[in-house]
């Protein structure tokens, strides 16, 4: 039997293929629009819901809301891609649309599928299909043969409305306070205004400058050495004598996970760490930071142990309100390095423009606090 391909003309084949491709494209666009519209409706519902929750119940993060709202749209697009029609689907659709009595289906299967057996009448079917395809192709351009899927403007409106609600400031004081911070805030802690902090800093600065010149010299000397290239153990200059600290009953830096351990971590599992969270008059002899306990100026601790820094909230440069942890620092309790004199050390060093070496050992949040702290000092000066 002569092969079907030898009996049909290229022109006929091309005409059928062109028409089927056109139908296939239109069909897929319809599916895409439908899936996209459906996804948009779901997304708008999510955004509206998130907006209402933001307004009345709980502050919603914009990024998470948008991510969640995008999921149905992405899912719709994914489904549309997966449902991309085949040639057979397009041919069947064309037959249904033009009442073609399975002409295009049969012709397509004869051309592109091996399942339909070729008969003597097959070339004639291809020829008829090609003629019909040309005719239908012209008719198919008319809009009556296409689904009039309107873009879901209403869904877009609802989505924008929901997005607007999310942008609104919702229930106050929700996401500024993290969970950890909110735990550390006790009921009797009331944030002091910035001015009170500034006054406090000024007062302490004056006290330090007037009463402790020797102490400042020591500090200057000490932190100047800190500006030099650090030895292999970066913490060495701040904990020169671990053994002595252990002898004194103090735990040294044992937490290797925290690079800022010169200022922290002696609280983990140590008595000293626990003590530092107590009022200062109760932990006068306990020792706090390893440096304070081990550096040459052990009198420094005695000089400053009675100094107290009040609980403050401080507004940072970016407008964030940082709450203290109850000990004058915005750190978590276990991060608290030990003593009020750290603050004083920092301020003193800052006054001598040597704060960089010191503050780089803070964690980002700690450093932010200290930067603001110094900034306020300089502003006052």
């Amino acid at each position: 039997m002569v092969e079907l391909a030898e009996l049909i003309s290229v022109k006929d084949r091309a005409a059928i293929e062109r028409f089927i491709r056109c139908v296939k494209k239109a069909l897929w666009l319809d599916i895409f629009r439908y899936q996209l519209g459906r996804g948009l409706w779901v997304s708008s519902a999510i955004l509206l819901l998130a907006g209402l929750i933001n307004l009345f119940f709980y502050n919603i993060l914009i990024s998470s809301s948008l991510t969640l709202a995008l999921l149905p749209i992405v899912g719709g697009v994914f489904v549309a891609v997966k449902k991309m029609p085949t040639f057979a689907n397009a041919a069947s659709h064309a037959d249904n649309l033009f009442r073609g009595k399975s002409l295009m289906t049969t012709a397509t299967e004869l051309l592109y599928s091996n399942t339909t057996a070729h008969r003597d009448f097959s070339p004639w079917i291809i020829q008829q299909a090609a003629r019909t395809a040309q005719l239908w192709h012209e008719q198919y351009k008319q809009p009556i043969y296409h689904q009039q899927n309107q873009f879901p403007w209403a869904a877009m409106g609802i989505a924008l409305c929901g997005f607007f609600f999310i942008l609104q400031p919702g229930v106050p004081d929700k996401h500024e306070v993290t969970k950890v911070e909110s735990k550390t805030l006790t009921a009797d802690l009331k944030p002091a205004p910035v001015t009170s902090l500034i006054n406090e800093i000024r007062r302490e600065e004056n006290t330090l400058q007037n009463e402790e010149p020797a102490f400042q010299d020591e500090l200057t000397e000490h932190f100047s050495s800190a500006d030099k290239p650090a030895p292999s153990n970066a913490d060495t200059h701040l904990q020169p004598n671990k053994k002595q600290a252990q002898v004194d009953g103090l735990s040294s830096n044992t937490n290797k996970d925290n690079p800022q351990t010169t200022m922290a971590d002696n609280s983990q599992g140590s008595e000293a760490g626990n003590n530092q969270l107590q009022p200062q008059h109760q932990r006068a002899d306990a020792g706090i930071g390893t440096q304070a306990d081990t550096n040459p100026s052990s009198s420094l601790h005695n000089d400053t142990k009675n100094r107290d820094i009040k609980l403050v909230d401080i507004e940072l440069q970016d407008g964030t309100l940082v709450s203290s942890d109850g000990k004058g620092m915005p750190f978590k309790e276990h991060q608290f390095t030990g003593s009020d004199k750290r603050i004083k050390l920092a301020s003193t060093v800052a006054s001598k423009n040597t704060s960089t070496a010191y503050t780089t050992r803070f964690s980002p949040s700690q450093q932010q606090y200290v930067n603001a702290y110094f900034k306020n000092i300089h502003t006052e000066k």
Partner: protein
Amino acid sequence: MRTLESLDIIENRITTFQEDFLKLRDRLRNVIVGQDDVIHDLIIALLAGGHILLEGLPGLGKTHLVKALAASIDVSLSRIQCTPDLMPADITGSEILLKANNDDVRIDFRRGPVFSSMLLVDEINRTTPKTQSALLEAMQEYQVTCAGVSYHLPKPFWVIATQNPIELEGTFPLPEAQLDRFLFKISVNYPSADSLLRMIDISLDDEPADHLGTILSGNRIMEMMLDAKNVVVSDTVKRSAIALILATQGDHDQSSSLARQHIRYGASPRGLQAVIKAARIKALADGRAHVAIDDIHDVALLALRHRILLNMESELDNISIDDILLQIISSWRKS
């Protein structure tokens, strides 16, 4: 150029088929008034090479229609009037002793009425199952076996049987195996008032079927039957037809709920073949060289109604097979 010539020849064959089909149909419509659909279905089954069971009340022109058909296509017609005492040999023929002139005696096979192209079996349900089963071999294998010798039947060969649906006393309903061998079961209904009026004018004093001339030869009928084999049935249409057959089966995954509820035995694979064969003729009669799902839809009831058995509950409730089948076909078409 050979392609273009081939296409012209094909087109000519299809056009001629369609013209001949319409010519035969119109001829019969002029003779048998008020049974247009029956005539159309009868010709489809005839060209599909299938046997036909005409079911209708007496006096509706069934026998007359078959006679007119045989006269129009110039094929030999035999008629058997079935009675309870009809024997198989009366249909197939039997061996008889013949005495020659020289006193030699020999056994010769005398052919029965089955040896004709068209066999009209009138009131087939009046004869016994034994005699009915004598037709089985002839209908399926187109041969008759007598005393161990097989005799081939002429080609083409059709059995057109009639039966009366209301008379139960003294009748022997056809067994399922016998029914399955009929391609179509065509119900002949009462004609309309206009048809009756016209019938009075045409056939009150004369039988027009007796004077019909041939318009298509037997060979032409054979050519038309061969043309039908070149009709393309796409895979989609085949699958659709299979889905319909499976929908009629009560114990299948793809069964329809109606079939599960009412049908004891669904359509057989032979029913599927019957549907496809008839759909090919329907397509050619419409001037198409391919079968459409619409063709399957149009012939499904005719090809399947006698292949389905209702369950006991549905029979007791006097539920019609046609009603159930029409609902199944309708739901299949929508899906």
